[in-house]
């Protein structure tokens, strides 16, 4: 895996992670309306799916970015 590839991957993974971390902190710490709870939980779920897709695309996909490939 080249350094630019790793740099891009680290960047791409941090964007959904930021939302997941921040919104789950909000759910844990704040008093929220049930509407906000549902909205934030849906967003966390969507970002987690995005994260999973990024991992599949970059590490499990065509092998281009697989270590040793």
């Amino acid at each position, binding site marked *: 895996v080249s350094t630019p590839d790793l740099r891009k991957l680290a960047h791409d993974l941090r*964007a959904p992670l*930021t939302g997941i*971390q*921040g919104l789950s902190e909000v759910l844990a710490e704040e008093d929220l309306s049930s509407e906000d709870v549902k909205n934030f939980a849906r967003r966390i779920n969507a970002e987690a799916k995005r994260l999973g897709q990024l991992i599949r695309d970059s590490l499990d996909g065509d092998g281009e970015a697989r270590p040793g490939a």
Partner: protein
Amino acid sequence: MVRENRPDVAKILLVEDNETNREMLSWRLNRKGYELVLAEDGQQGIDKAHTENPDLILLDMSLPVVDGWTAARQLKADAATAGIPIIALTAHAMAGDREQALEAGCDDYDTKPVEFARLLGKIEALLPGGGNA
């Protein structure tokens, strides 16, 4: 939910292309008593810095249309916006990112994922009068 709406409340321009992160940060900052103005790309950020006259700008670096480094340089080169403090947000967190952001004219720098308490501290430190806290 209590949302403060004082006329003396500090106004933050958040320039972030990721919708979830934009919503998350604006919600949390709003709850801390800040007024938020949102932009989705670097050009919108530059435009809103002029029209909204924010007290501080939170600027993602990886933005469409005009990237954060270019936006920061333009804002700091323009007398109308040069005085607005800018905190760069980057998802890279690699050696050299901080220096690049500061070279572009940003006043401070933070990394994603965002540690909210740390970011709040940086915001308060850069706002005139120490912010709303």
